[in-house]
């Protein structure tokens, strides 16, 4: 595992698609200071995706892929959901788990990587929706926190099962009505960020993806803390514009409005995590 696996044999350079050649020549490999400000000028690790036009989740994935400190040494574990449509197009190691067991799979991968590469840092990041993280996979998610697995978990919260027609999820706010939930949600939204803190996560953040630089900051903090201390959790609001009846150009406006409401930026840092963050700041990596 290194960025060399993406290097093209010189004899095949003239027959390779230009997108693959650009990935070798103009992507941001091997630079721990890479970030969202590289996006306008460099080849991205996501080649393309089949998510809807204007999907906020797609923007979130761009920011995350641009912010991971060492993509060549990172394994992403994902689960069933809209994000599944993106991972086949990413120039990184990705594994699609069963619906809900993504944190268990990630735990195993992290342990094997530590055993196989004792002298190299390997990051394992879970990317899953609110259904996989909180409803179907809550036991696997929390158990990985209890066990202090050194992995980062990122939850894309669109507050609904969007790609199956609009059923309510545990993250749906009380009273919300969707196409397949006509009576409205009867219970409160699960405060997953608080559960993560109570379950032993050392760094927890809740935010929308309306600010690319803020997303970059929390992703880097979460990955660095997970490397050295223990589990970290990021809760991102990525609304499904189709399910809540918005036009393709209204996703950003929706997130900006929720920045002042139930997704106001929230960050929890344990004392051990704070030490790591201060150290990385001193190194110029945050």
């Amino acid at each position: 595992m290194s960025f060399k696996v993406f290097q093209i044999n010189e004899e095949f350079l003239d027959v390779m698609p230009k997108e693959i050649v650009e990935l070798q020549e103009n992507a941001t490999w091997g630079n721990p200071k890479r970030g969202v400000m590289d996006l306008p000028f460099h080849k991205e690790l996501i080649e393309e995706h089949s998510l809807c036009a204007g999907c906020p989740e797609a923007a979130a994935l761009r920011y995350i892929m641009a912010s991971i400190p060492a993509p060549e040494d990172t394994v992403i574990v994902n689960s069933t959901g809209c994000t599944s449509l993106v991972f086949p197009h990413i120039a990184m190691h990705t594994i699609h788990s069963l619906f809900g067991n993504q944190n268990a799979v990630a735990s195993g991968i992290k342990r094997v990587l530590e055993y196989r590469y004792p002298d190299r840092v390997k990051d394992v990041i879970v990317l899953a929706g609110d259904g996989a993280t909180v409803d179907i996979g809550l036991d696997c998610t929390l158990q990985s926190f209890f066990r202090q697995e050194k992995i980062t978990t990122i939850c894309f919260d669109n507050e609904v099962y969007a790609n199956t027609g609009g059923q309510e999820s545990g993250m749906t706010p009380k009273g919300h009505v969707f196409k397949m939930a006509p009576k409205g949600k009867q219970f409160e939204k699960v405060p997953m960020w608080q559960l993560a803190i109570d379950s032993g996560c050392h760094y927890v953040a809740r935010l929308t993806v309306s600010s690319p630089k803020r997303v970059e900051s929390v992703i880097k903090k979460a990955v660095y803390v997970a490397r050295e201390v223990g589990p970290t959790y990021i809760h991102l609001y990525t609304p499904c514009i189709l399910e809540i009846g918005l036009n393709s150009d209204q996703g950003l406006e929706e997130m900006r409005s929720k920045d002042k409401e139930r997704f106001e930026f929230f960050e929890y840092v344990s004392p051990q995590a704070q030490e790591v963050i201060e150290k990385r700041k001193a190194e110029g990596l945050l």
Partner: protein
Amino acid sequence: MYYVAEVINDECTKYKCNQCTLFCPEPNTLMYINSPNERHAYVATARCKGCALCVYVCSNLLKRNAIHMIMPEVHANV
């Protein structure tokens, strides 16, 4: 057939904000050229899905009006 984004180079050149390139949900689609002769955003038309989020950022948020939606020639002739 759908509209796609087009950068108005003369308007975009007046600023150096890059903001539209950050908020586009599509990868490798709304990029920025920053050479001694040219300095503006540009759209890879074949990749644009026409969400118009860049127009919202440029016109509604930043009041710069340097991007508009057009019917690309490849679609207009169908």
